[in-house]
């Protein structure tokens, strides 16, 4: 069963790469959020694939379900922040968010 585990992990890694790429390069704030969503898919796939390969699918399912609930909360909060930012800057470009230097 190890082979299937690595199949899923491999695809999950691919999804993570796509998501992280979006997070690193995109300028539109909503695109950044789509990037985060893709990362979440990768993580769900990794968790569930691990459970499947370990013959532990029920436990993995409850983990994935809990994770999806967390994801919804995060998306709601993030989109609320985005809407508030656009009220200030009238744009979705994160280049407007460079006032603080970090």
């Amino acid at each position, binding site marked *: 069963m190890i082979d299937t*585990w690595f199949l899923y*992990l491999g695809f*999950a890694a691919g999804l*993570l790469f796509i*998501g*992280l790429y979006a*997070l690193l390069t995109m300028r539109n*704030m909503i695109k*950044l959020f789509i990037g*985060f969503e893709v*990362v*979440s898919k*990768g*993580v769900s796939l*990794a*968790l569930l694939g*691990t*459970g499947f*390969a*370990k013959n*532990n699918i029920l*436990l*993995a399912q409850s*983990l994935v379900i*809990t*994770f999806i609930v*967390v994801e919804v*909360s*995060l998306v709601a*909060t*993030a989109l*609320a*922040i*985005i809407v*508030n*930012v656009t009220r*200030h*800057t009238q744009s979705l470009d*994160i280049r407007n*968010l460079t*006032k*603080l*230097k*970090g």
Partner: protein
Amino acid sequence: MIFLFIGLPLVVAAFMPLIGKISKKFLPDLLANAVFLVLFVLAATSGRQLIAGGPVLQSLSWLGEPVAVQIAVDGFSLLMLMAIALVTLCVGLYSINYMTPYGSKANYYALLLMMVTGMNGLVLVTDLFQVYLFLEVAAIASYALVAYGLEHDELEASFKYLMLSVVASAAVLIGIAILFGMTGSLGFAGVADALRGLDSKLAVGACAALFLMGFGLKAALIPFHAWLPDAHPSAPAPISAMLSGLLIKVSGVYALTRIFFNVFGLAPGAWLSQILMGLGIVSAVIAAFLAIGQKDLKRMLAYSSISQVGYVVLGIGIGTPLGVAGGLFHLFNHALAKSLLFLNSGSVQQATGTRNLDEMGGLAKRMPVTAATSLVGSLSIAGVPPLGGFWSKLIIIMALVQAGHGVLAVAAVLASVVTLWYYLVIQRKAFFGKLDEKWKAVKEAPFWMTAATVILALLVIGTGIFFSAIFKTWIQPASDALAKGF
């Protein structure tokens, strides 16, 4: 009983909006602070008795059937619970005055209570995935609280904080998935036992790297610190205190330490220990230097937080009992002192309308209590005897020398000197010196704000004077709990 730590704030938070509708004036404040007081009393009294018999596991029963709610209190958890309770109580008192202009106080207290629920939950659970879950609870509350004022700066800081945190969460979850795949279990004990039987250096190394990335970002270790200097200054002062004083330690240092000690096993001299020490000393030194050039008071405090957390990680990374104890003691001291300093910065900001150090001057004449408590906090972090910070830093440096890391000890002392330097700069620029014309009319901060800072200052002084008693009763059991493993 232990479940109250999580259940009480959760339930009160759930009812907060309703309470806010009933009475906007004082009922939310009263209720929230009552909850914080209860948590403090709980932590102070029941915890110690329970620990005497060893780590306490609690399994609840619900509707007659035993339900697998595994929460455990050991020395380390108790120390964190105590720190959380103390700081949150003072922050809650402070917020009575400070948060009034922001509006919707019931909502604010609800979020604050949710953050406490998340943090308490994090330190009490015995399961990897649940650590992540409660970490997210506290994190979501903190994103909203950082952006609470809805001004441009706060939103920008909150957004950057959120973006970086989701990467951290993903890293942590992938690590958990790999561990789950290797061991088939999620609980600390289960994973630890299974790992002992396997020979899996590479995979454990990969997991450790992922956890370092994830929790290290939450703890704002360099190079994962980029969000902190924006988020902590922009947030409202009590929230900065909560973040700097508690959240980075609970969701960053606690989680990292718990997993590295009780699941992976950290031996002094092992490569894991060396990496932790390396990250720690880098953070301690570099952040100290970065703090020097700052003009914004809260930004300087933010860099100082990164530096001090570096100290804590350095101490814990040594791996020897003395080092771990020193690191934990410094964690406790810094939680108290840094929240004190951030609360004071809020008082100053409210009185003068600015955070720019160059514009301030001579405030001690108009705000004597704030100046005095600020001095106490600064000296403690800088490591001046007889305050708490001196003892914890001394112990860390002693542990470094004992373990043979002379070079690191020297670097740590150097960072300490730099720390003292920039704190004196803050004190001089803001409080002492000539009273600037503009500030002739400022008054001392309102009652609850000063009360909260005075309480924290007294605690800081107390931990300094009574340090050996505190060390024996709170810190030593925490260090032992880590050393024993699960």
